[in-house]
């Protein structure tokens, strides 16, 4: 029988091998899934993982999907390192998109350099304010942040739906719930001419590097790490949990808000109800897969951006439901958590009881 045995020291090799192993297991499961559905598995996996990024346009689309994931994940990394389980990136994102759109539609005809910064700033501010609600509820009213941020996500979604059906609705939009198209001065410049890839990806990369520098160099990064690893030690050191909680939430709100603003001013160019295919939730997987490390999340966001593209590709090419994206994402997180057990434990085949008894002292000695 398989048995888990506590490692004397956590395996640093497994810490980085586990995401790779999880990906391999996800691909194998995908293979079996395609077989079970009577589709060609090799072709299916090719459509999912390779076809979407086989040309420049495809790579640009990958960067396009990476941008919001990376921004949201950078903020969540700050929260999760401090063990603040903020699930609210989706809500921050939606409010950022809503705030940015509310300003952008005021300046459709304006031709001024300050329009875009103003629009983006409003998005950031909206995200920050939305996150501040959850921060205040946690620090002053002791509410569980998981539940409050989830509820705030649903509330934000309803706000957005209200806006596109009501005050922000394009009167000449043939009844579609969407805002007017933004003016050119409110649109993000393209990063690669001829593609849809915009400067939002640069924001994301910058945010990831900033988070990396923060944890590697700054005192507040150190404090966040300590409070996440040992709450009591942080108390003894006199670090203010309240201040750090606010900091983490506000950073999370700012980056996700910017992501929302970049999305409406980037590829979409207007506010629509389906502005997010769940970027805020997928960003949670990005953070775990990227080992809560700023450089890790860059790779992880590329992989999860690919699941969005791959899902769309399968929908078009093989007539599969779009939900295959969520399925692969869920599987990946599942396998990751399972493989993570190998960081702390090693798998042993349990022999017969007598032999196990003989083995015990040696292992004990080694561990001692």
């Amino acid at each position: 029988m398989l048995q888990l045995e506590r490692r004397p020291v956590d395996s640093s090799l497994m810490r980085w091998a586990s995401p790779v192993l999880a990906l391999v297991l996800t691909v194998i499961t995908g293979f079996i899934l395609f077989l079970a559905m009577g589709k060609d598995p090799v072709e299916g996996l090719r459509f999912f993982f390779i076809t979407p990024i086989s040309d420049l346009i495809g790579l640009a689309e990958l960067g396009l999907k990476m941008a919001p994931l990376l921004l949201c994940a950078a903020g969540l990394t700050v929260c999760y390192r401090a063990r603040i389980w903020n699930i609210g990136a989706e809500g921050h994102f939606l409010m950022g998109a809503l705030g940015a759109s509310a300003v952008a539609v005021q300046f459709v005809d304006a031709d001024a350099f300050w329009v875009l910064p103003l629009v983006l700033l409003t998005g950031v501010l909206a995200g920050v304010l939305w996150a501040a609600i959850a921060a205040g509820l946690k620090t002053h009213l002791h509410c569980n942040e998981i539940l409050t941020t989830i509820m705030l996500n649903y509330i934000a979604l309803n706000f957005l739906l209200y806006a596109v059906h009501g005050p922000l609705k394009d009167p000449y939009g043939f009844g579609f719930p969407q805002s007017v198209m933004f003016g050119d001065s409110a649109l993000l410049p393209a990063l690669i001419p001829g593609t849809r890839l915009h400067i939002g990806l640069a924001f994301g990369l910058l945010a990831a590097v900033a988070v990396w520098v923060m944890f590697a160099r700054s005192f507040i990064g150190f404090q966040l790490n300590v409070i996440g690893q040992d709450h009591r030690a942080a108390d003894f050191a006199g670090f203010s949990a309240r201040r750090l909680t606010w900091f983490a939430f506000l950073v999370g709100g700012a980056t996700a808000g910017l992501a929302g603003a970049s999305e409406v001013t980037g590829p979409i160019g207007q506010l629509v109800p389906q502005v997010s295919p769940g970027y805020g939730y997928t960003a949670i997987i990005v953070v775990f897969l990227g080992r809560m490390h700023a450089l890790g999340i860059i790779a992880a966001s590329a992989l999860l951006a690919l699941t969005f593209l791959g899902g769309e590709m399968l929908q078009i090419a093989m007539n599969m439901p779009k939900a295959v994206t969520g399925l692969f994402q869920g599987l990946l997180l599942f396998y990751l958590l399972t493989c993570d057990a190998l960081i702390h434990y090693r798998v042993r085949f349990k022999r017969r009881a007598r032999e196990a008894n003989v083995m015990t002292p040696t292992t004990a000695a080694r561990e001692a």
Partner: protein
Amino acid sequence: MEMLTNILAATVVAGTPLLLVALGELICERSGILNLGQEGMMLMGAVAGFVAALSSGSLLVGLVAAMAAGVAMSMFFGFMAITLAANQYAAGLALTIFGTGLSAFVGAGFVGESIDGFTRVAIPVLSDIPVLGRVLFDQDPLVYVSFVACAGVAFFIRRTRGGLVLRAVGEDPDAANANGLKVQAVRYMAVAFGGGMAGLAGAYLSLAYTPMWTENMTAGRGWIALALVVFATWRPGRLLLGAYLFGAASILHLVLQGLGWNSPTELLAMLPYVVTILMLVLLSWDPARTRLNTPLSLGQPYRPSH
């Protein structure tokens, strides 16, 4: 009077899925395991119940399939959270993300199909009681199941040896283990019960509440149920009250529209979530009291030390 009765009856119906899923989570949390995957298990229950009922023509088969799907999902979680001692928050989130994806995947071909769902069955004599009779005893069979389940859970926790074991494991797994109780086994059973109830709650949505399948049809009810358990301070009686309170909040927009109060539906649809936050605020006000009621080992992984 007629309208009040209608509103109360609709409140009970809207509260029933919350009550079912929250009862499962209550047992689970009493064993010390926090399963944030309720939403995912409910969605799987909803889709499995709907597909099974549609293809077999039997609602009962649908219910069994829904509960089996919930239990199966909960075992994924149990393996990670109990056997592998993984972070319960992360494992629960994984379960929800996975369940949301898988249910949409499985149900993609069934969107738009409809089914003859559970209908009301009036209980003789009891349903003749003025007002309350129609509210409580002229409902679909699953509402009665939820009454029985609530009473059963209350009785189990307070009056049986099994309930004592459950509480011991949730409060102090080390002491329970030292007394020869199988902590991991008890926790697996609690998690499985939670999964079954979440599956049943999902089936209530797709077989009784709105007899059809739509993506994400739980609309956050799994999360609200988690807040409900905190609201109820882990007691089944208060859970019943809380479920109907939230049920009332979720039909409030229908009531207001009925009264000719013309507010945008999107703003009214926020109400249950706003109410949930307000409830959390009221209940978490005094952190000492919450700590006093919370099962001591809640959310902490446990591995027997021998």
